C-alpha cells in the first residue's frame, strides 16, 4: 500500500489525466448498473439442466376387498340386487368381461364403462319375478272359467289392444312412445259380405296381413294414450261402415280392377266357346256342354289366381290336353 502510494505520487503528474478519465467512466457505469454487484456477468453457453422434480408420493389408502369376493354362494340374490340399477362390479360376483382390446383379453368388470352402458336384467331373475307375481296375486281376480283356451278368448274378445309402458330412472317418468296404441282384429271376426270385404281390404291397404288374417290399426297422432285409443276405435268403426256403403261409382268396376281372376267374365271363356263351335260363331257363351270345360276353368283360374308355378302349369297342360282330346302315351 505504501509503495503503491509512492508510486502513485511519483507518477501522479503523468497519470492524472488517465485517472480522471477512469473515474469518469467508472461513475458512468455505476450510474447505469447501480444495483449489480461488482462481478462479471457470466455467459451461459450451456443452460443448466433442470432439477428433476420429485415424484408425488401416492397416498396409500386401505380399501377393503370388493364385496363380490366374499359373498356366499347361497345368498338371496334378489335382496342383493332388488331393482333396476347400473352395473356395479363389486356387487356382482360374476367374472364378466366386456369390450375390446387390440391385444389380450377383453377388459374385466372393474371400471368397465362398457358394462355400465348396457342395460342389465340382474333384478329380473326368475326367483325375483316369481316373488313379484306372488306379491301381485292378492290383487288379481280369478280367470273366467268359460275362457278355457285361446280360441274361445279370441271369439269373445276379438279385439286386442297393444300399447307399451316404459319405466326407467330419469327426471321424468313419461315416455313419448307410451302414447302409441295398436288395435288388432281378425278380419274373419268382422261381419262382411263379398263386396264389403273387397272394399275393406282396398281401404286397409297394407294394414291387413293376409298371412295371419289380422288387421292392425296403429294410432300415434294424439299426445295421450287415451286419445289414441279412442281414435283407433273410431278408425275401425269408420272403415267398417265405409266398406258396407255402396257408392254409385262402384258400378264402373272393370276387369282390370278385379281383385281376382273371374273365368266366367274372362277372355278365356270366350275363346274356349269360340274354339268349340268353330267354324260357326257362337251364339251364347255356355260352356257346360263342352267336355272337360270345368276342369279347364279351374286350371286357368288357379294358374292366374294362385300365381304361376310348375305345378299349376302342369295342371293347365293336363286340362288343355283333356279339352283337346290329346293323349301323351310316351311319358318316360
Amino acid at each position: 500500500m505504501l509503495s503503491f502510494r509512492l508510486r502513485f505520487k511519483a507518477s501522479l503528474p503523468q497519470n492524472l489525466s488517465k485517472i480522471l478519465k477512469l473515474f469518469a467512466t467508472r461513475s458512468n457505469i455505476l450510474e447505469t448498473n447501480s444495483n449489480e454487484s461488482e462481478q462479471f456477468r457470466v455467459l451461459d453457453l450451456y443452460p443448466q439442466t433442470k432439477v428433476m422434480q420429485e415424484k408425488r408420493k401416492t397416498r396409500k389408502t386401505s380399501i377393503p376387498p370388493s364385496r363380490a369376493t366374499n359373498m356366499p354362494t347361497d345368498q338371496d340374490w334378489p335382496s342383493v340386487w332388488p331393482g333396476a340399477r347400473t352395473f356395479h362390479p363389486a356387487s356382482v360376483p360374476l367374472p364378466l368381461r366386456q369390450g375390446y382390446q387390440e391385444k389380450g383379453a377383453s377388459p374385466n368388470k372393474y371400471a368397465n364403462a362398457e358394462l355400465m352402458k348396457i342395460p342389465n336384467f340382474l333384478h329380473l331373475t326368475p326367483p325375483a319375478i316369481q316373488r313379484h307375481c306372488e306379491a301381485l296375486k292378492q290383487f288379481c281376480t280369478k280367470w273366467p272359467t268359460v275362457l278355457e283356451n285361446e280360441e274361445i278368448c279370441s271369439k269373445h274378445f276379438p279385439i286386442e289392444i297393444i300399447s307399451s309402458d316404459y319405466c326407467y330412472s330419469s327426471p321424468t317418468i313419461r315416455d313419448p312412445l307410451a302414447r302409441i296404441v295398436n288395435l288388432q282384429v281378425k278380419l274373419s271376426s268382422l261381419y262382411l259380405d263379398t263386396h264389403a270385404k273387397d272394399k275393406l281390404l282396398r281401404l286397409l291397404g297394407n294394414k291387413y296381413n293376409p298371412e295371419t288374417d289380422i288387421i292392425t290399426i296403429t294410432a300415434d297422432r294424439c299426445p295421450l294414450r287415451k286419445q289414441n285409443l279412442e281414435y283407433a276405435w273410431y278408425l275401425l268403426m269408420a272403415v267398417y261402415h265405409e266398406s258396407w256403403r255402396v257408392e254409385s261409382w262402384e258400378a264402373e268396376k272393370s276387369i282390370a280392377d278385379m281383385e281376382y281372376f273371374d273365368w266366367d267374365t274372362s277372355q278365356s271363356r270366350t275363346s274356349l266357346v269360340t274354339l268349340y263351335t268353330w267354324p260357326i260363331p257362337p251364339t251364347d257363351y255356355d260352356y257346360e256342354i263342352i267336355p272337360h270345360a270345368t276342369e279347364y276353368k279351374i286350371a286357368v283360374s288357379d294358374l292366374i289366381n294362385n300365381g304361376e308355378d310348375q305345378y299349376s302349369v302342369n295342371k293347365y297342360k293336363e286340362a288343355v290336353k283333356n279339352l283337346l282330346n290329346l293323349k301323351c302315351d310316351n311319358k318316360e
Partner: protein
Amino acid sequence: MERTVGQPVNDSFLRRIRKTHSRKFSTVVEVKDEQASQVCSFRTAENNPINHNTDHIARLYTVPIDIQRQIFQNGGLPGKFMKQVTTFQECSIMVRQPAIEIISYLNQVDYTRPVNKYVLYGKFGVGKSLTLCHILHYAFAQKYVLVHIYWAAHWFKDMKEVATSVLSPGCMDLPIDAGLWLKHFKFQNSKLLSELDLKVSKDYVWNQREMTSQGTSILELVEFGMNRIKYACGVIDALIKELKLASIAGKCKTMVVIDGFNAFTSSHTRIRNDNKVMVLPKQVSLAIPFFDITKNDWCNGAIVVTVDQTANKDRRESHLPRYLLGKEGFEHLDPFIPVLIEDYNIAEFDSMIEYYKDRKWIRNITSSGQRELELITNRNPFVLMDQCKFL
C-alpha cells in the same frame, strides 16, 4: 394310311418312321372302328323324324345335308350350334322327350278341328330352339307349308329399316326384314308350293299400276314381295291370309313355327315412329299377320312356338309361359299346351358326351372328368356345349 409328306430331305427318316411307328401315328383306322362299335349306343340311323318315337329318345339323328340346306339356309339353327355343325360336318340333333311328345300330338290330332297351339318353355339353354328345329324337320318331312320365324325378337331389336306403312295406316313397316322373311319362306317351301300349286283367291292392289290378280300362284306373290320390298309387309299379310284360306279349304297343311313368340307380346321395342315414339309390336305391320295366324280360327295346321326369357326386355325373371307371354299374350294363345323342356337327363348327357368323343371334340376324358363336367354344367345343354369347347 398313306401320308403324303413328300419332303425329299426327310424321306429316308419318314420311311423309317412308317416302318416302325406307323400304327401308333395313324388315326384314320381307329376312328372307323370306334364309329362301328358305338353307332348303336348314341346314334340312331333313323334320320326321318316321321318315324321317331320313344325308342329313339336320347339318341342323335343326323339331318340330311340337302334338307339342312333347304330349311336352315337363312337361319334357324342357333348361332353357336351352327358353328358346331360346321366343325362336325354334320347336323346332328338329339331326339328328346318334348319333341317326341309334340310329334305324337301332331300324329293323333284331328285336322278338321281348329289348330292346336304348343308352347315350348324352359330355362335358358335347355334346347328349346333345337327342339323346334326337330319339329320343323318333322313338318318338312310331313309336307307342311312352313311358316317359320327363327327368332322373332330380331324384328324388334335388330331391324334393318323402318318405314311408315302405306298399306296399313298407323303402322310401321320393316321392309328389309319382311323381304328377308319372304326369301326364307320361299327357300323352305319352293318345292312344296310348286307341287301344291296354290292360287291367290282375290285381287290385291298394291298401287295404281301394280296388283296381284286372282289366280296368280302363291310363289309369284312371294316373288313380287321379294322384288318390291316396299310392299313386302303387305305381301306377307296377303300370303298368311291365303295360307289360312288354303288350309281351311284343305289344299295344304300349314305349320307355324315361331321361336321367341313372347317378343310379339313385349311392351318394349327399338322401333320408333316419325315422332320418335316407341312402337309396340302390334303396331308393326310385319307382326300383325303372325298375330293373325296364331289365332285358332283355322284348321289343317299346327302352331308351335317357344317362349324365351331373352326374347323380351321387360319380363325376364321367370321362364314360365304365362309370365313371359303376359296377360294379353296368354289370352291370345289360350288354350295352348305348354311343353316343358328340361336339362339333359343322365342318358341324354351320356350320349351327348359319347357324341362329342366320337367327333373328337373332347378327348381323353376320364369317368371322374365326365362326372365333373356333369356337375359344373348341371347337365344344361348349352353350358355343356360351352364347357366342352376347351376340352
